[in-house]
């Protein structure tokens, strides 16, 4: 009996040894899993991809700004060709390769009717009551050093200006014209930070006018509105024309022949 009891004591040691082996094994596996990505430095590549992505989107914006001011329809293509060469120099040793496809043909977006007609990634409709300019491209990023291939994204830049109403007010010896204008950018997000200096020109019947501007949320239009006031207009204008250059340097021109009288 005594011998049997003494033998049973060995099982405690064996159990403890098995428990220890189990603890060490499980911990090693968990530790290896947790620390694997720490050694790989993925963050570095993620930041490179993110930096290229942001810069490509900015390039689309710069290209659109240039196009809207110069009407050079090849500017985006030229900029992207230079960009894919330059980005390799910016990250030497990573095997960075950027490719692009500029939007082409008719595409529906932002409720624009008729849909936008892109050529070389650019679309424009000016001298309408609602005018816009847009750029659109798909960019493909490969980083050979980490085997990243085919990461692509589409980006677009957009600026739309609508002349909601132009009203000629008369009476009590004062004559003036009020423009009610709304401005949107990509995502149909209202542009709310424009200053009077952003409205490059305001014309009535083809003649440039000096003006004052205020901005507010209009319950009438249920939208953020820029109200442009031109004073001392003694006759009903035949047309109204507004040129806008936003803070990004993107230009658009709206025009209407509908001037109301009150």
């Amino acid at each position, binding site marked *: 009996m005594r011998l049997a009891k003494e033998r049973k004591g060995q099982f405690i040691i064996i159990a403890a040894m098995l428990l*220890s082996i189990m603890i060490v094994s499980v911990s090693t596996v968990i530790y290896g899993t947790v620390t694997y990505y720490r050694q790989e*430095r993925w963050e570095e590549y993620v930041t490179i991809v993110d*930096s290229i992505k942001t810069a490509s989107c900015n390039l689309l914006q710069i290209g659109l700004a240039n196009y809207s001011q*110069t009407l050079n329809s090849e500017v985006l293509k030229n900029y992207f060709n230079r960009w894919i060469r330059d980005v390799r120099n*910016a990250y030497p040793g990573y095997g960075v390769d950027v490719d692009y496809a500029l939007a082409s043909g008719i595409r529906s977006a932002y409720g624009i009717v008729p849909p936008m007609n892109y050529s070389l990634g650019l679309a424009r409709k000016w001298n309408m009551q609602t005018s816009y300019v847009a750029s659109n491209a798909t960019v493909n990023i490969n980083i050979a050093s980490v085997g990243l291939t085919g990461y692509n994204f589409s980006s677009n830049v957009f600026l739309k200006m609508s002349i909601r109403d132009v009203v000629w007010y008369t009476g009590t010896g004062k004559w003036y014209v009020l423009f009610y204008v709304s401005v949107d950018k990509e995502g149909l997000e209202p542009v709310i930070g424009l200053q009077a200096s952003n409205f490059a020109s305001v014309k009535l019947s083809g003649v440039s006018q000096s003006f004052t501007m205020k901005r507010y949320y209009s319950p009438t239009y249920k939208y953020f509105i820029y109200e442009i006031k031109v004073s001392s207009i003694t006759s009903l204008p035949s047309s109204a024309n507004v040129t806008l250059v936003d803070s990004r340097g993107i230009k658009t021109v709206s025009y209407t022949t509908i001037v109301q009288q009150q």
Partner: protein
Amino acid sequence: MRVVESIMAALIVISAVTFLYFFASAPSSQAHDTSELEKIGHNILHDIDEQGLLARYVYRSEWGNMTSALVVSLPVNVYFSLSIYDMNNNPVNHPLMQYGDQQVFSSSAAVASVTYIVPGYQTSYDPRILVLKLVNG
């Protein structure tokens, strides 16, 4: 009575746990630290860029604003040094944009470096490479 066996078993388990404690201590935190700093640096440059300020600071030579923006955005114990290059890696002429003594950068074992590209400003394509170096104070 299995007192001896119990003590031996306890010693075995304690040895295993002690072994794990030393084995699992953080590897080299240096790589991890620089990775974190790189992430912080990139995010800050990205945020300033998203606000449309980064290109303005660079192309309109608003170096004071650039330095201030980085100082207020970075954690208090992180020092930085910013250099700007053109696409041929020639330094662009600008005053020293740095927070913290030069000695901090030379003596620190782990300096994180973030490369960020600004393709141009307004209508002009004229890329600049921003190299932001960061160290923990």
